[in-house]
Structure formats: structure tokens, C-alpha cells
């Protein structure tokens, strides 16, 4: 025989409620697609300590202690094999011309390739450290090249720029550097 007992009312409508929740969730996802780049969790924290050997013979390597010399710096992570790094070269040159100290970290590179790269694209760097096995890149929470960190005079990371610096980003970076000065 059949019984007349059925599920409670709320249970009957529960699937519909869950489904509406799903629709709302994916609507948010569709119309406000979150930024998919992986930002470093170190922004607002001190630069980790590292000491990289020179990437080019006769040029200084990069010791993170020079970043805490009281002046804000840009730290640019780049490589000669990276195409966007060529795109951002003029902007870096402009920043260097404006008096911004730029330190370079070249990732998985060789001196010969790097030399050619700098010859073709200009050399805005004060020092270039060679990060041959990518360990410093990992220590900084960087997930690709190019990336640019704004570091204040006390060695704190105040901003991370992911991807190439385009012309429209230059003013913003200078502003960040000035903020870091204060």
C-alpha cells in the first residue's frame, strides 16, 4: 500500500533554492570576472632577504640590502627570452631618466643573451642580479616575467605590477614611488 507522507515543504523547495544560488554565483562570475593573475602576498611586507650574483661580468649583482637605503626603488623581474620585456623597455628607460633607481633580476638567463638584449633595448638598470634557478623569483611571490615591485626606502614592498609596463602605467608608478617616499 502507498502512504501519503511526503517530504516536508522546505525540503521540496530546497533544490530550487540551491539552483538559484548557483545562478546568482555564476552571474557574478560572468559579469565581474575576477582578476586571474596571481598577486604576491608580500605586498605591504618587507622584501625578503636575498643576495644575487652579478648577471653580467663587471656589473654589480643585487643584494636586497641596497633596497633599504632610504630611497624608494623599482625592482624589475625580467629575462632576455621574454617578449613583453622588450615592450616595456622604453617605459623603463623613461623611468630611469626621471631618476628612479631600477634594480633588475634576470631569470633563467645567460650573460650572452642578456648582453644582446640590453644592447638592443637599452639598459635602465643600476644592478642586475642573476636568478638562474628562479629561487628569488619564488621568494618574492612572483609568478611570471615581467613583474615590477615598488619598494620603499625601508625595504618594504608597497606595490607589485604584473605584466609589462605600458606607457599609461608610467605616471601611476611614479606616483607610487612618491607615495613610498613619504
Amino acid at each position, binding site marked *: 500500500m502507498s502512504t501519503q507522507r511526503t517530504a516536508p515543504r522546505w525540503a*521540496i523547495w530546497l533544490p530550487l533554492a540551491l539552483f538559484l544560488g548557483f545562478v546568482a554565483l555564476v552571474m557574478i562570475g560572468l559579469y*565581474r570576472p*575576477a582578476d586571474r593573475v596571481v598577486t604576491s602576498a608580500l605586498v605591504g611586507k618587507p622584501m625578503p632577504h636575498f643576495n644575487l650574483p652579478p648577471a653580467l661580468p663587471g656589473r654589480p649583482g643585487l643584494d636586497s640590502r641596497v633596497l633599504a637605503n632610504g630611497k624608494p626603488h623599482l625592482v624589475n623581474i625580467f629575462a632576455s627570452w621574454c617578449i613583453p620585456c622588450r615592450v616595456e623597455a622604453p617605459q623603463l628607460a623613461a623611468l630611469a631618466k626621471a631618476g628612479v633607481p631600477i634594480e633588475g633580476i634576470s631569470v633563467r638567463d645567460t650573460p650572452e643573451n642578456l648582453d644582446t638584449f640590453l644592447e638592443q633595448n637599452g639598459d635602465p638598470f643600476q644592478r642586475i642580479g642573476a636568478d638562474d634557478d628562479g629561487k628569488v623569483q619564488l621568494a618574492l611571490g612572483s609568478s611570471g616575467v615581467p613583474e615590477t615591485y615598488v619598494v620603499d626606502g625601508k625595504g618594504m614592498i608597497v606595490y607589485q605590477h604584473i605584466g609589462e609596463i605600458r606607457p599609461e602605467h608610467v605616471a601611476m608608478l611614479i606616483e607610487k614611488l612618491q607615495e613610498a617616499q613619504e
Partner: protein
Amino acid sequence: MIAELGLAALWLAAALAGLQLVAGSLGLTARGASLAAAVRPVAVMQGALGLLSFACLVYVFSVTDLSVKLIALNSHSMKPLVFKVAGSWGNHEGSMLLWVTVMGLAGGFMALVEKRLPERTMLATLAGQAFVSLGFYAFLLFASNPFERLSPAPAEGNGLNPLLQDLGLAFHPPTLYLGYVGLSIAFSFAIGAMVTREVGPAFAKAMRPWVLGAWIFLTIGITAGSYWAYYELGWGGWWFWDPVENASLMPWLAATALLHSAGVLAARNALRAWTVMLGVVAFSMSMIGTFLVRSGILTSVHAFAVDPQRGTFILVLLAIYIGGALTLFGLRASTVTEGERFAPISREGALVFNNVMLSAILGIVLFGTLYPLVAEAMGAKVSVGPPYFNPMGALFTVPMLVVLAVGPLLRWRRDSFSRVGRRLVLPGMLVLAGAMALLLMGGIALLPFLGLALSVGLAVATLLPLQNRNLRRTPLAVWGMVIAHFGVAVSLFGMSSESAFSVEKLVAARPGDVTQVGPWAVKLDAVEPVAGPNWTALEARLLVRYGDDGKVMRLQPQSRSFWAPPQQTSESALLTRWNGQLYAVLGGEAPGAKAAGLGRADSRWQLRLWWKPFAPLIWIGGLLIALGGLLALIGRVAADLRRIVAKDKIVYRRERQGR
């Protein structure tokens, strides 16, 4: 010209779907009853027109008519014919057309042969089917017209990604579509049954072959997909809990639950509301899976861009169908009683347990897949991967597998453990013995340990329903169940063995070096360049030997470079034995040799080698599951046919007697 014919056929089919919906729904009312007779022929005609339209698309692809935009974008005149044809569904528009075509054909077929249900329910079902198709027609005609022309026609097409120029990959997606379409039919049946309040054994029996068919295709699709990922990706993994994989697993989980609850409804007229609910859920999962993949909302930046327009369209369809069906369910569920009662220890009891566990696993997979989106909406990022899915899934899978060993031995309605207990002594002992042996070996993680211990006992237990039966007279459906359940045990054993006993070796080898991987000795003989039609490759010649006195065999993994578009792939080489698989991949030239100024003869090559004991059982088990489904399907359909024939005979006799 042919392209226009295809488009015209598509519009006509869409119009007929509209007619089918209107006539089907009016046919349910007293005043529109005269329209009812039109519904079945219209459904058949709609299927035929859909087929014509798809045939036109295949034709323009096979002659590479570049004035059609879709072909200019996705094909190339120099491609082999089979890939030209496969190219017709290897893109968004074509695959949607294939989908509606199969759906139309299935609807037409259903209209022709299904005579079991009350006519009103059939009308509602066909109207529901037309309603679902109509949405897809609209999507095709308004947002993704496959026959759009391009003027002027380009001189040559864009080509197809080399990855897709693989026979397996060309025929894999349609397999999954067939599964999805089968579930859409189950969905239509559920709608029809809810509208006319005819939820009973007849409904379950009419729906079951479609669910079975869909489930077989989904099983094959997932099994094949997993195997391709395994050999194509070159790192030895076979399941990654990637959103795209989960999107194909979720409909399978829902269909598995539906299959079992439809069995209860058909045999015992119980679990009515639950079965209808699962019918809706199974189809929603295939729509949600399609949505998640096509909208690009979950996959990574590098594979897909978020496409809000396409995503929105599918989302709107999803909201109309599933939202509508769930509302209908809410309104009607209170009038659908749960049906016959049964004791906890009974066949139904075991099946209910299986259903609840499958639904819980489905819930976890769905939630874990969507959670990164929830986090993104809150402005954070999380990753949910195997370390989450494996244990959480096992939480529900392990009890389910235990019940799977017992359930098929139980009687319907009411049974007792004392009756079946004795038959389970042997499997129970096997599980215990296995567990002891594994404990003595030591060093095995919890999940593989559980899997290994359970699988042996489970394999024996799943065969027990055949005990004391005349095997020749055992119905095919029982054979199907036994084989499918046995396949579960086989696959479980393969998975657990692969994760417990795999041996991995990464080496930088010089020609002549010998590496030991588990029982295998692998010698790198030489690395030589080879050339293919659109790639060049480095090929390693490996001489491998199993044990100390095995025969020497050859393995030739390649590292390929395609030039259009430029892409590197590793072609792994596999060697299968009864007790496992040797998996070899050639990586790049090891760094250091060049720097040290050594010559080419002295360079070292990176080799990745795995010995995976019993790994092939994973996919053999999957195929056994599908085979079980197939046997059950044949058994059911044959029984239905016999019944139809018998009925016709009775009618015929009566007519003669009446004369």
C-alpha cells in the same frame, strides 16, 4: 547553396519544434484534443530535418567550402577527409548543431516507438522535449549560426589544432553529447510525468532505456577521456579533479543514481518523487557542465577567455529549464506520494543508501568545483584539488562500496542479514586477509589501503548473484548488473594499486646507460631525429627488459615539435603487461652537457619512467562498467520488444475472433 539548404532545414526544424510544443500542450486540454494526433508525426519530421541540416554541414566541411565562415575558421583544404568530417563538430557551432540533431532524432524515435505510457503523458513528454530543443535552436539560429557566410571567401582555412587531429579526440566529444542528449530525454519524461501526475512504474520503464543508454556513453566518454589524459600529458596522471573533468563526472554520478532509483520505481513502485527529482538533476548536471566549460568561467586563463555572451545564453537556457522544472517539482511533489514502503534491510534499502551516497558525492564534487568561484566573488583565491576531493569523496564512496557488496544479494521489500550473511563470509575474509597483508607490507597511504583491501572482497561479492543460478537462463539484465559491479571492483583495484605501488624514476641518461624502474631494466640505446607530416621529433630508442631473464623489448617515446602552430608535445610510450604498464617519456636534453663543452655523443637526455602495477585495470574496469550497462540495455529492450510483439498478436487474434 548547400549551406543555405542546411540553414533552411534548421529553421524549419525549429518551427516544427515550436509546433510540437504548442500542439503537445494544447493536446492536453479538452478543447485542443484534436491537435494531439499531430504531435508524433511532427516530432519525427523535426528529427529528419535536423538530420538534413547536420548532413549539409558535414557536406560543406567535407568539400571545404571556405565561403562558410565556420569552415574558414576551423578547417583546411589539405586535411585528411576524416578530420574534415570530424571538424564539423569540433567547434562550438557545429557541436551545438550535432546536439540538437541527436536530440531531434531521439525525440522522433521516441514518438515512433514509445506506446507504453498513457497518451497524455507522452504528449507532455514530447512537448517538454520540444521545449528543450527550442532553446537550443534559438541559441544556434540567433547566437551561433553554423552556416554563416563569409564574403569574400578566404583562399585558405585556419586549420585545426594538431592536438585535435587524433581519431580518438575527434570521436570523443560526440560520445559525451550522446550521453547528455539521453539525459535530456529522461528530463522530458520527468516533466511529462510531473505535468500529468503519472509517476509510476510505466514511467520508469519508459525512461530507463534512455538513462541506461546515456549512462553507457558517459561511462565510455569518461573512461576514454581519462586514458587520453594519461598517455597524452606525459606525467602519468589519469585523473586531476580539474573543473573540466568534474564537469563530465557530475552528470555520470547523477545518471548512476537515477538508473538505480528508476530500477526501484520500475520494480516496486517506490521512490517516486526522488526519481523525478533525479531526472531533473541529471540533466541539470549536463547543462551545468556544458555551461562551466563553454563560458570559460572556471578554466584557467591560458585555455579559455571568459565569454559572457555565450555563457549568458547557456545560463538563460539553464535557468528556464532547470528553474522551471524545479518549480514544477515544488508544486507537484506534494501530490506525488513516495509509494510502496520497504524495510531498511531490503534491495530497496540498499539502493536508497546508494542513491543518497551518490548524491552526497555529487554534492561534494559540485561544491568543490564551484568554491573557487565563491572565493573569487569574495575577492580571494583558493584552489581545491585532489587533496580535498579524494578524502571527502572517499568518505561517502567507501560505505557505498560496502553496501554494493551486499545489496544485490538482498530480496525486494524485506530481508535479513542472517539469510545473506553466510554468502558474505568469503568476501569478508578476503577483505580482512587483504588488509592484514597490506599492513605487513606497510608504507601504504590510507585511501589506497582501503581501496586495495575492499576491491578484492568486492570483486568476489559482486559475482555472488550468479551463484546457484542457471547461467544460461539468467536474464541479461542480471548479467549486466554483475559485470558492471565487477567493473567497479576492477577499476577500484587499478586505481588503488596505481597510487600505492607506482615507481617513478627521473634520470638524465647517456646513450648506453641502464636505469632500473621497479622490475624493469631500461637502457637508453640512442636518440635520433624523426620527421612526421607536420612535425619533427627526437625519438629515444629504449631497450627494456622485465626481470632478469625477460625478453628485450623496444619503446620509442618522442618529443615532438609542431610548426603550425608551433607547439611542443611529448609522445609517451607505453608497454603493457598483464600486471601493469611501463610508461616512458623523453624530456629535453639535460642541461650541463653543453655548458661543459661535451660533444653530442656525450649528451645526456632526460627520461621520465614509471612502472605502474595494474594501472590498465582502471580503464578495463570502466569498460566493464559500460559493457554491463550495454548488456542490461539489450536485455531490457529485447524484453520490451517481445512484449510489444506479444501484445500485437493478442490484438490480432481478438480482431480475427471478432470477425
